[in-house]
């Protein structure tokens, strides 16, 4: 009887010490890539309030400065600059945007609308921007399509 009590006492002490040892360890590190990707947005938000991806924000800025005057602030082809013939492309048209590959869009911006067999009304922007900037614009234009 006495023995079993002793052993039990011992087991309790041992279990406690194990707990203590375990407690001394660090908190579980975020494991696996999924955890990490989550923390990226969550922890930056604490200080920065980062919400919009850089490419979209920069794309929007460039679009509204250089493109919106013809294509409209929302990209629907109705800028302040009305009465253009042919009318500027409507980037909010989902069906139309489906027919347009990223490569073609990129080329049209870079080398001008004439380079993809359209009118010469949209000028070539390739020499005025870094190719990454053009990609930002394409990325942004891709978000404009609505139903």
């Amino acid at each position, binding site marked *: 009887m006495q*023995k079993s009590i*002793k*052993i039990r006492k*011992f087991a309790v002490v*041992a279990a406690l*010490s*194990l707990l203590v*040892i375990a407690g001394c*360890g*660090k908190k579980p*590190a*975020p*494991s*696996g*890539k999924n955890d*990490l*990707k989550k*923390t*990226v947005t969550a*922890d*930056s938000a*604490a*200080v*920065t*309030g*980062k*919400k*919009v991806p*850089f*490419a979209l*924000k*920069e794309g929007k*800025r460039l679009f*509204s*400065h*250089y493109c919106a*005057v*013809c294509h409209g602030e929302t990209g629907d082809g109705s800028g*302040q*600059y009305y009465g*253009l013939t042919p009318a500027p492309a409507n980037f909010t048209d989902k069906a139309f945007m489906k027919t347009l590959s990223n490569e073609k869009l990129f080329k049209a911006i870079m080398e*001008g609308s*004439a380079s993809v067999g359209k*009118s*010469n*009304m*949209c*000028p*070539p*922007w390739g*020499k*005025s921007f*870094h190719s*990454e*900037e053009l990609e*930002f614009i394409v990325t942004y234009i891709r978000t404009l399509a609505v139903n």
Partner: protein
Amino acid sequence: MANENKNNSSYKVYVFVFFSAVLLALSLWVVWDDEFGLRPWKKYQEEFKTMKHDQLEKDYRKAVVEFQRSGGHKRLAELEAQLAKAETSFQSGGTQEKYKQLTKQFDDLHAQSVINQKELQNARGQFLETEYYFTKTQKPEYKVKMDELQRQIDAITLRGNALQKKEEVLKNSISAITSGKAHLEAEIERMKSGIEDLKEKIANNNKVAVEIKQIHIKDIDKADRCQTCHIGIDGKRQVSVLQPFARHPASFVYLDHHDPTKFGCTFCHRGQGRATTSTEKAHGNVKHWDEPLLAGDMTQTSCLNCHGDIKGLRGAEEIVNSTELLKKYGCYSCHKIPGYETMGDVGPVLTEVGTKVNYSWAVKWLLDPKLYFSTARMPKFFFTQDQAESIADYLFSMSGTTRHDVDYSKETPNAKLVEQGKALWSQARCNLCHTTGGRGGNHVKVYAPDLSKVGSKVNKEWLFRWLKNPNAYFPGTKMPRFRFTDEDIKSLVEYITSEYKDDEAEPKYVQPVEIQVASIKKGKDLVQKYGCYGCHKLQGMEEMVQIAPSLKSQGVSFLRGDEMREKIGTELSSIGSKPLEMLDFGKLKKSIPNDRLSYIKQKLRDPRGYRLGLRMPDFRLAESEINELAAVLYGFTDSNVPVRFMVPSRQELDRMAGVQSYKFTGDFAKVIADVKCTNCHSIRGIGADYAPDLSYAGSKLQEGWIRNFLANPDVIRPLLQQMPKLGLTSGKPAAKITMPRFNLGQQKVEDTNRTDVDVVINFFQQELVSNDIPKKIPVITTMTMPEQISKGKNLYDEKGCKSCHQIGTEGGALGPNLSNVGNRLNPGFIFKHLENARKFKPDIVEPDYGFTERERIYLTNFLMTLKLNTK
């Protein structure tokens, strides 16, 4: 007893076994934790390697398929067969023997040539030595020796040349034998190279070691290990858009100008660069680490660390916009902010305010400026009625002895004058800067007051004096002096005071009441306590400049130490790097997050909320403004910036070089001070970006056109001016925007014999010229002028210029109307502008077409033919 003994020993065994097990488990855990638990980055590096491998593998397969599809393998097999044939023929008896013979000859010759070369060097050395002694001693024997050596040198050179010629001949014969083979080999190499390169890249990727990657920047002693996880951050190609593998966005702006191996990461992004054990620690989102990671727009606050002048800085757009708020609200008036010392007062002169406004209005304004108009910039000081009256008493006592109001609401305005005034109001484009009834105010950065209720604020006599010469009442005001006649001004005053009235105004002192002396004293004390003199010029308080803590220490500034203004009761601090324990959260310690950014934001939101007795007034900022301002303040740090990182502003550079910064001088300075051209135009870096930059106006514009334009300003870019400009509030109602008519050219400039237009033109032509803009363009002699013009016209049509520019009635309205461009611009400017429009205006919408010089000549010649008969 024996039983107990046995029990005892088995007990010991249990203890031993148990602790052994614990020890073993601990050892295993230690090994595991050291290898994996504390090194989460290993997984990322492995994963990145796998992803990169997959990407390269995919490229490789694609390249192989493409190679096969284009028949590359057949061609390669052919080439290889040819090479084998060439090899056999090369190895065959005769050729091989000849080849060996020739190579041997060549080797022999080459050996001779090497010896010869050495002899030549030797002789030259001796010659130089002798020459040295000869020049030193002038002894003839040295001269003799020199001649002898010269002869030797000539002989050796001749021999060498002969040898070289022979070598050349042999080389040619050798290559004649091997050329077929070499050619084939090169061709095979070329065909294989794309694929081989990829293979090599894959092999190299597999060899990349999984290890801590650290950048150490010695002069600021920073060690960043961020790339240990952010392994693809400076890669040429995006491997994955997911963190931590993504490339740095817009690296052509950020990384290309800030080499990560020299700047590291945490210098701009903050965070805990040395930590690698967990994301939270590395990003500094842990207790006792005061520098959490900056990401997104917030990172741009770090630009302020080194860049003295961020205006127009690519990649710093957000923070540039935000710093505008410092100017808008005049933070520098109470706080010391290096770089803003020379900014003018943000509020008007108050010395004679008693002659300007109604007493009742002044009290109402002091109680809450936003009650008068909602966009008022002056903050609320939470004065009581009694306090506000005391302050008004003090202010009025500087120019009089009574509280007094005027009330025009009962008077009948002179209808004819009102009509004239209204016409003048729109002709002078008052609404360009001033808002009335929610209209106008497009040029927001001049912060002109809303005039919707001004008729119940000011009196007619003052308004007359003001319009006649604003500088006389408020030196340094942004209000230009229009060259109105007295008759004009009278009509304007009549129109303004009758049209823009406050229906809720309660003028209590139409019958003036004497001011109490005790109240004046009380008012003065309040003015001193709250530092009204920070923003307003007040008699007797001109020397008092700062009442609030400094926001940016001198540690970060560049050679500004001795230029700091004296400050009253301030502490030297850098708010963006101030240690947390020095921030007094007071009452809010428990209710808001205890970090620096939250502190700053809460301070801006509720300036007196932390504890009693704080004096900062409430600016009633919008939440977006709070975020922007906080971002700027967060960038005011005393971080240790190495000199090599510093990009001083132009003014600082001038100061360091001991030269005067650019300043307008002479008669033109008088015109500028009067007409305030720089409210809208920028000239040599001074002024605003609302209207075209005039820095090179002399090279750009023709004199006749300037005269016409100043006399009768017209719209040049109809659409662009109405576009909501970046950084300005969009959605402002578009008033007709043209340059106001200042009625220049009718009066002589003070102390001179010339009219203001003459002075302006003289200054443009003398000072505002650029050596980059030629006076004349190159002439093409091989083609007649009409041919060139017609070529230019074709180019104009072909490139679609008309989508933005208008000629006659055809074309767009975004760019300048070109119908009269031949009278407006100088050909040299057009020629240069077509080469690189961005040189003159970095954010110009016009793209670069990459015209050749000839094309630019054609276009210039064509455009110069476009002229309207204006007279």
